[in-house]
């Protein structure tokens, strides 16, 4: 048997170069978006001042205070939440082998929303610091219900059953949320702010609190990359390749809950990032999950921070929340993606 020279066999050198270039470009996009996020806003601050504010802050300087107290937190939260949504979306799409799966479709956002509304209307919570925990718990509870409903019965949790269970949980949670909101207008007012989703005006302490959850979630995603490469071939093939499908699926579900719960708790539910990012990542980096997960993290963060910056520029002196910007830009982009049949199953 002839053996070809080593090096030609695995995805061509050009392809590998493209993958590295794509990842680097995503990283640069994130750096650029973050820089703009620190530099741009209602108050015009010179670039040099912004740099000083970050590197050599002066206590009484109002420009520095704006950068450090307002712009830096929302940038950090945008990065954290965006990358969490991006990676969570990539995990969900691959584990369920469903290219349109995202935290919204699986009812996780609806679960978080129900928990936050319950917190506001029943427990009278008003501080974002407490809402964080309700959002997180709501996400986890919704995931548990979806997993429980989907795996009931002998057929087990097939991708289709997971999607259907998610849709059912989303519908149920949303209707209860609406019921609570309609019966209490004051709650509606406070909830509206949370619901739109934006990294602005959030609590930076929440990031510190949720950091362990984020780190754990990203670690699970990193460890799952190779396993997912086998899992997307289908359960039978994955098992015969030695993958422990059940274990991997539970681990990924935990990762999704951690990332999605933390992301939603940080910035509110933001649609489309979890849906769009993995498609972009696959388009740029191909099908190897070790690459697409990394790209999803960078692209998700870049998207959310960019949307947040765009929201500041769209309607001065006011702002449009990042969640709205993402939806307004995201919906047409998604339509274009579908029309050009760029949709790819993982």
């Amino acid at each position, binding site marked *: *048997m*002839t*053996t*070809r*020279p*080593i*090096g*030609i*066999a*695995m*995805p*061509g050198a050009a*392809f590998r170069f493209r993958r590295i270039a794509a990842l680097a470009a995503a990283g640069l996009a994130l750096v650029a978006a973050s820089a703009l996020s620190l530099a741009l806003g209602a108050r015009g601050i010179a670039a040099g001042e912004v740099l000083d504010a970050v590197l050599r802050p002066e206590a009484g300087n109002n420009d520095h205070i704006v950068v450090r107290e307002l712009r830096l937190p929302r940038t950090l939260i945008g990065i954290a939440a965006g990358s969490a949504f991006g990676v969570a979306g990539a995990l969900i799409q691959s584990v369920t082998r469903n*290219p349109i799966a995202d935290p919204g479709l699986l009812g996780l956002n609806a679960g978080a929303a129900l928990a936050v509304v319950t917190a506001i209307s029943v427990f009278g919570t008003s501080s974002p610091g407490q809402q964080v925990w309700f959002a997180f718990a709501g996400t986890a509870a919704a995931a548990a219900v979806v997993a429980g409903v989907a795996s009931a019965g*002998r057929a087990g949790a097939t991708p289709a059953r997971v999607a259907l269970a998610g849709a059912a949980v989303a519908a149920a949670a949303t209707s209860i949320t609406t019921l609570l909101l309609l019966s209490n207008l004051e709650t509606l007012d406070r909830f509206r702010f949370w619901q739109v989703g934006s990294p602005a005006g959030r609590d930076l302490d929440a990031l510190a609190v949720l950091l362990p959850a984020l780190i754990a979630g990203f670690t699970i995603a990193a*460890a799952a990359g*190779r396993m997912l*490469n*086998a899992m*997307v*071939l*289908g*359960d*039978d*093939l994955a*098992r*015969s*390749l*030695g*993958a*422990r499908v059940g274990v991997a699926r539970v681990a990924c579900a935990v990762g999704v809950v951690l990332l999605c719960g933390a992301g939603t708790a940080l910035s509110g539910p933001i649609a489309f990032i979890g849906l769009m990012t993995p498609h972009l990542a*696959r*388009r740029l980096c*191909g*099908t*190897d999950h*070790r690459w697409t997960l990394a790209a999803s993290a960078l692209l998700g963060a870049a998207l959310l921070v960019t949307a947040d910056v765009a929201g500041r520029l769209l309607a001065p002196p006011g702002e449009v929340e990042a969640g709205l910007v993402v939806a307004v830009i995201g919906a047409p982009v998604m339509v274009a993606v579908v029309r050009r049949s760029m*949709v*790819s*199953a*993982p």
Partner: protein
Amino acid sequence: MTGLGGGPDRLTARGVRMAYDGAEVVRGVDLALRDGEILAIVGPNASGKSTLLRGLARLMRPTVGAVLLDGADIRRRPTRDVARVLGLLPQQPVAPDGITVAELVDRGRHPHRGWLRGSGDDRRAVAAALDATGTADLADRLVDGLSGGQRQRVWIAMAVAQEPEVLLLDEPISFLDVAHQIDVLELLCDLNRRRGTSIAMVLHDLNLASRYAQRLAVMAEGRVVAAGRPAEVLTESVLREAFGLDARLMRCPVGGTPIVVPVRRFRGPAAP
């Protein structure tokens, strides 16, 4: 137990019964795949062939009995260790969108590989698998864009890259035209001869099965009703019993193996 020119048993079903939702599909099967042989499992639809294959591949647990790999219960061994010895090609596997041939074949290295990246062994195994299956020219093509025959070759290349000593295939030629059917079977024979891969496959075409397999196992209603050399197994009475088929037998002018000429189907209680 050693057999007709074959070596010791590699993969053995011992008193295996299997059921879906309480409905028994495999009803007590004893069957062995011997080292270095090609075994074809044939039988009518719903006779339990594919289910038995899933059991042999440890994808489904027998309700009674056990599957032995090299004499030891397959479920007692870590699944990754088993995957280095035993490969499976399911009936209609689905490739991820946008994956290239080389990447898909590389996925076959999963059980041999560490977390981060492949070794020289992996690259050599993939290159050898592409060569052995005649798919090297397709390496950078997208799997989505291949013809049915090319795609099946690529899937077999993936299984070959896994370097299994025992390879199970579920209806590997059912959706191919006759030329590509021969193509795939020749390829499997080639693997069997050159690498000594022991192969068990579910086939529907009795004539091709008798020509390319050293042994046939005929299943009906969850049991193996006959097993042995094609000439011993393919008889008018076995065809009547297993398929409810009235058939005559001829000799293949190429290989001398039996050729089944169906006459008509028996009606009545014998053929529900």
